[in-house]
Each structure stands twice: as C-alpha cells, then as structure tokens.
C-alpha cells in the first residue's frame, strides 16, 4: 500500500509538532524515519495510525484520500502500529491477546483463530506457544505476537516505533528478517528510530525529521555524517567556557548501578571535581537521568557507592544529600520541580532550608520572593502561580529557589524549550556558581550546549556510558556519531 502524506500540520498549544510534513511511503519497501526526540516522528505516526487527527493536511492510501478517527479505523484501512511498549495484555494467554480486537461476531472461533495463528507463526518462524501467557514473553516475543496480530487483522502497512529498544541481538536479526520478508510480500514498513546503525542496515530509504519538519531524504549507501547533520542541524563549535580552577573530589561514584522501572544504568564510575562541569550527552532515556537522580540521592544505588565530598552517602536518604548541598533541577518543571497551583512566594517558603518558625511571615516572604524575582529577571509577581509563567520563567524560578551555597548541582535539560536569550541568561547564572567551586552535572540534547559548557562529556547509550570525552579532544560530529550508538 502506497501512503502519501501531504502538508501535515499538528499543533499542541504553542508547540508545532508537525509543521507541514510531506512524505510518500512506497509499497514493498522499508522506509526509515529518523530524528531525535521531539522531532515530530511520534506525532506523525500517531496521525497515520489514527490516534490523532491532523490539524490540516491530507493522507492518501493508494491515491485515495482517507480519514479516520480511531486506531481501529486506521487498522480497517490497513495501517497497524507496533508501539515501543507493546500494547498487549500481560495476564492473557497469547491466543486471547491475539483474538482481541477482532470484535465482529459474538462467539470467537478459537479453534480457527488458533490455526491461523500457528500458520502465521510458522510463516515467519516465530516460536510462540498460543497457550503461554503474555506476561512470560520477552519484549522481542511480544513484538512478534503483535506483528502476527496486526497482520491477521489485515494490516498492509506496519509502523514500528523504536522496535530495537530492549530486544536482544538475535531477536533483532529475527525482526529484521521478518520485516524484509514482509516488504517482499508488498507490505509497507515504516521503521521509526534514532539509531543510525539500525536504519542504515535495514532501510531502503530514510527520511529525517527535525523540529517538526522534513530535513532531508537519503538512500543507500548512506553517509552517517550526512544523516547526523540532517538530524541535528548545522553545528557551530563554540569556544570553551571560562576556565575556573578545579578543586578536590566532590562527587565520587564507584561502580554504582541505578535503575528505574524501564532502564538500568550499571557500573558507573565517575569522579567529579569541585568546580567541574560534566555534560551528559545521549538520546533521551539512555541513562542520563538515572545518573543525575542517583548523584543527588533521589534514586538509591542498587550496588556500588556514592560519595559527596568524601562522605559515603550510598544508603543515605535524600535529605542527607540536600544537607550536603546537593540540588536537582528536573527537565519536567511542572511535574517534578514546581507545584502547580502554588505561587512563587509559596515556593520560596517551601524551598527554605534549616529550622523555620511554624507560622509563615508572609510579609518577609513576599520581600524575599520579590528579591528573587528581580535578581533572576522573572516575568511574574510574588503572587503569580507558577503554571502561569512561561517555560523560561519557570526555569528561572527553579534557579531562584536553589540555595546560595550549593556543592553539586544536577540539571536535566536546563535550557530545553527556552529562547536563546533565556538560555544564555540561565548559563551565565550557572557559571557564576563555578566561582564558589560548585560542581555541575547537566544532561542536554543540545550538542552545542554540551560542547560549549562542559569540561568533560559522558556519552550515554542504552543505559551505559559509551565514551568519556575531554572537550579538547572532541568534535561535534564525533559526538553525533556516538549519540547514535556508532563508534567510528
């Protein structure tokens, strides 16, 4: 099935997620969709699979314009989507999960469905037992189940969103073989990824998205350098940050392992000196956040040790870290950093450290809030609720809440979503802290930012540090390769 997207637009509030995207996906080919997080890939694929309706633009299947309002309708038109986290039903038996979604007829003919399921599995050499439970499957097997299900429901085009995340190497080989066979059968395969190597190995054609637009197309043989450039734009290498002498060891991680429900970042060994700036590069969700939260006590280390200025805080509660002068500034300001519904001055009260009188002296707090507002150029008043502030002013508020005498500051995407002026302002305030030899750890998707301010760069890929780089011996292009998981 030939899929043509013409001038697709989709906005979410102020964000123009898809700003006039036109792409044609040919039948019988594997088409890669490449781009970093926030480039607009997911939005586009959700439009194509019926989760969102586009604000404007046209979708044509085999030349005929189509419109659909739900994923089920999209599937009736022949488009099936395989999500990064498979949307299956873990307590079910495979066969029940397989039958689910075909809801015509009252009684499902299990025997017939089972026969067809086994046929499909044989055809693609999937080793799936219809009696087994979904919860016992690996991610790779769940993908196979989902592929079989979508094909059985009549999908003629398959969208795969980051399908190689979380599956083993042999499963990846199997998956690629399956996709190639499906393409040979004339199916349209759309392979969404940010992994250069996977895309280069598999795809017949690649389209790169950045900032909601198509920034280029490529066909084999691919040039990684060219793809990196299309993904990240023309990169200008800026001068290094002003030099500040490094002090003694501030943060010491010794074979520390941190994990949350979907990622494990194992065996981190890192020494950060007072006054040092460490940039954490990598695609989002590669382990940077685990390190930031682990270093600030928000996540306990599963193994290994965490020391702050020589004190072993491995098993210490978060409050001990705060007392040691550690602070964490999250990327998701409104869900992790600020309290929606509370005002700037109320945040000032909450952020105070040490013993406080039980009754709030609102007059004094208002004065303090107004000082912070003036000091950080926040466009708002002491009584302004934080959700009414713009992103840049929310970030300034978060910085205004930080104690003056911090030892270690961990920031996740400190300038994401900010305009250039705000970003420069934020960094000027951060760099001031280096003079008190505060150490700074920050994660960013902006390679310029990483290159400009870091003394050292850790490149994360899939939950481990792929490479530790000194700024002086790194080029932005090299960084781009590493982020895509390719060592040169």
């Amino acid at each position: 099935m030939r899929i043509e997207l013409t001038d697709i637009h989709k906005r979410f509030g102020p964000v123009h997620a898809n700003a006039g995207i036109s792409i044609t996906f040919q039948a019988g080919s594997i088409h890669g969709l490449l781009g970093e997080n926030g480039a607009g890939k997911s939005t586009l694929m959700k439009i194509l699979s019926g989760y969102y309706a586009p604000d404007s633009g046209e979708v044509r299947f085999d030349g005929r314009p189509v419109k659909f309002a739900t994923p089920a309708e999209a599937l009736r038109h022949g488009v099936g989507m395989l999500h990064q986290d498979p949307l299956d039903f873990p307590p079910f038996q495979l066969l029940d999960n397989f039958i689910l979604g075909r809801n015509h007829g009252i009684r499902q003919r299990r025997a017939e469905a089972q026969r067809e399921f086994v046929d499909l599995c044989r055809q693609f050499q999937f080793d799936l037992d219809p009696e087994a439970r979904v919860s016992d499957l690996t991610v790779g097997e769940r993908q196979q189940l989902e592929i079989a299900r979508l094909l059985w429901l009549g999908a003629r085009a398959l969208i795969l969103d980051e399908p190689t995340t979380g599956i083993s190497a042999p499963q990846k080989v199997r998956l690629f073989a399956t996709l190639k066979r499906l393409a040979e059968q004339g199916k349209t395969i759309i392979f969404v990824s940010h992994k250069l190597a996977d895309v280069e190995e598999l795809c017949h054609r690649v389209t790169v998205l950045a900032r909601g637009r198509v920034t280029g197309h490529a066909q084999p043989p691919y040039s990684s350098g060219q793809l990196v450039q299309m993904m990240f734009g023309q990169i200008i290498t800026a001068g290094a940050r002003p030099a500040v002498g490094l002090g003694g060891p501030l943060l010491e991680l010794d074979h520390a392992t941190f994990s949350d429900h979907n990622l494990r970042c194992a065996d981190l060994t890192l020494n950060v000196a007072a006054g040092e700036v460490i940039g954490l590069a990598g695609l989002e969700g590669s382990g940077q956040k685990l390190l930031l939260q682990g270093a600030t006590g928000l996540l306990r280390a599963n193994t290994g040790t965490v020391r702050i200025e020589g004190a072993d805080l491995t098993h210490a509660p978060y409050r001990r870290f705060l007392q040691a002068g550690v602070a964490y500034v999250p990327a998701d300001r409104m869900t992790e950093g600020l309290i929606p519904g509370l005002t700037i001055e109320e945040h000032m009260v909450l952020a105070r450290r040490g013993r406080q009188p039980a009754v709030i002296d609102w007059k004094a707090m208002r004065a303090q809030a107004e000082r912070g507002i003036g000091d950080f150029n926040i466009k708002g008043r002491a009584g302004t609720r934080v959700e009414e502030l713009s992103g840049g002013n929310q970030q300034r508020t978060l910085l205004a809440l930080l104690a003056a005498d911090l030892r270690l500051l961990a920031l996740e995407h400190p300038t994401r979503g900010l305009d250039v002026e705000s970003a420069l302002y934020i960094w000027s305030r951060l760099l001031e802290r280096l003079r008190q030899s505060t150490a700074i750890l920050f994660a960013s998707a902006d390679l310029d930012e990483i290159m400009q301010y870091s003394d050292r760069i850790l490149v994360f890929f899939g939950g481990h540090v792929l490479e530790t780089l000194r700024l002086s011996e790194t080029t932005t292009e090299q960084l781009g390769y590493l982020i895509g998981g390719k060592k040169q």
Partner: protein
Amino acid sequence: MTLPRSRWLDWLAPFAPLLIALAFTSALLLIAGAPPLATFQKLITGSLGTPGKQADTAVVWTSLVLCSAGLLATFTAGQWNIGIEGQIMMGAIFATGASRFFLDDTGTLVTATPEVMLVAVFSGGVLGGILWALFAAVLKVFGRVHEIFGGLGLNFVSTALSIYLLFGPWRQRTGGTLSGTVQFEPRTWLPTLEGMRVSPLAIVAALLVIGALYLSLHGTVWGLQLKAVGRNIRGAYTLGIRTHRMLFSAYAVCGACAGIAGAYLVAGVHHRLIPGISSGYGFLGILIVLLSGFRALWVIPIALFFSAVSIGSTALQLDLQLDSSVGGVLQAAVVLSVLLVQGFRERYLKREA
C-alpha cells in the same frame, strides 16, 4: 468571543447548581405525587421552625463541621479519606471503652468526677480516630493500597468491631431492649442547654476546630507543605519536603477530628454506643468539603444547609408521608449539580481561552 454571554454565565454560576438541584428534586416530587413547594417549606420549618428543631439541627451541624474540618487536611494533602466513617466509629468505640473505666454495669459513675470522665472519653475518641486514620495511611504509604479501598475496608472492619462489642463484651447485663450499650447516667453527659439536646460547648469546640484548621492551612509551613504534597507529591519531595510525614500528619489530624466527632456522638448525643453511630456524617462531610471548594470558612454555612436538610427531612415523613430520603436526594442533587456546573464552566472557559 461572546462577552455578554460569559458575563451572564458568571453571574448565574453560583446559583445555578442550587436551581438545578431544586428543579430536579421538584420533578421527582411531582412524579411521586407530592407538592414540591410544600415539601421545601416543610424542610425549612422542620429544621429551623422551633428552638427545639434548631437545636437538633445544631447537633448534626456540630458533627458535620468536625468531620469536614478533618477532611480539609486530608483533601489538602490530595487524599480521599473515605475511611472517615470508620474513624468516627473507632472514635466512638474508644470513647465508650474509656467510659467503662468509670461506669458500672448500670451506667452509674462510680469513680472520679464527670469532668474527668469526659476528658477521658474525648481523649479516647481522639486516640481511636487517629489510630484508625494512621492505619489507612500506613496501608497507603507502605502497602500502596489506594486510600479509597483501604478506607472502605477499614470502615467495614470498624462496623464489625462495634457489632461484636455490642453483642459481646459490652452488651447490656440488665437486659435492656434497646440495642447498644447501657446508657450513661445523665450527670456524665456533655452539658446541654436546658431541655434541649444541643451542647454549646460542642458548638464552640467545632468552631474552634474549623478555625484552627483554617489558620494552620493558610498561615503555617505545615499547611503549605500539605498543599504542596497534595498538588504534586514528586515536586514536593524534590523540594525537600518529608512527604510521608506530611501524609501521616494529615491523616492524624483528620482522625483526631473524626475521633472527637465520635466521642461527641457518644458523650453528647446518644450517651452510649449504638450500632451505626457514625450515621454517614463522614460521607456527608466529604460532600460538604467538595462543595466548599476546600475553603474552611465555607464549610460552616454549607454544613448548616446539610444538617437542616437532614433534620427537616425527618419531618417530611411525619407530616407529608414522604420518605425522609427526599432530603438525601436534595443533598446529592446539589453536589452533583455543583460538580456538573464546575465541569461545564471549565470546559466552556477552556474553549473560550
């Protein structure tokens, strides 16, 4: 942008829920063949018409205000403390347990003075309420049991415990016909106004409790931290607030208020423990706090409306042969229409924006 229309809506909005509720209830009454106007009139005269009726209304009001005050703490912390019914019940059980140190089998005071016993009874009530509330909090914080399910379960447990006590260890030795423990002798009762059931002391206490909640939620670090926990627990934790401790304190405060209400129902209203002594006041409290928009001072008049409807509806049965549940229908209709109008306005305003 249709300015006149939105202004008209703004003006109407505060009254709309009441009008909707009255219209809905009137329609139901008409279907049931009852005269709506006379019914509403009866509701008013039945609850506020005579000093005696006013006193009865004040008794219900006292319990409702106490429960609502406690719920303000848990709601501020973002918790649906459905378990408040059980906390009232446990307050009443512990209060009765405390009274048994002072009374003999016939309910006569045998040790200490009435004042000492009252202090013990109310202390027992507070303790029982707090324990039961902390139980729900522990289930929530450490057991990851949602407070609605935990609270609901604990409500059943507390009811079962009261039934066990009433038909087991605490049953009347003298073979009284009424269900419940033996009645306390009158000199141990919470002092009331001459010839009425209402205790001025209890009214003052309820006002003090709601006033204390108002002040601590608005003027103290504790209140602000509680608000932060309720609105964004992750953000609050990152800011360095001890979120678990805050949740426990909110439940403890609510349990204490519910416990006072339970002890009041024992010492000031029924003068003994009876089955179902919590009478749904906890649930009504939830509705009151929802209606108040979590504003402490609004609780006072709204609780008055609810208690008046509750007392007035008992008169319906006597005078109009209408079931007293008409009052419950009106209360529920008011809450639903307030939520409906709120939702409508939010949606409408969002679209305008």
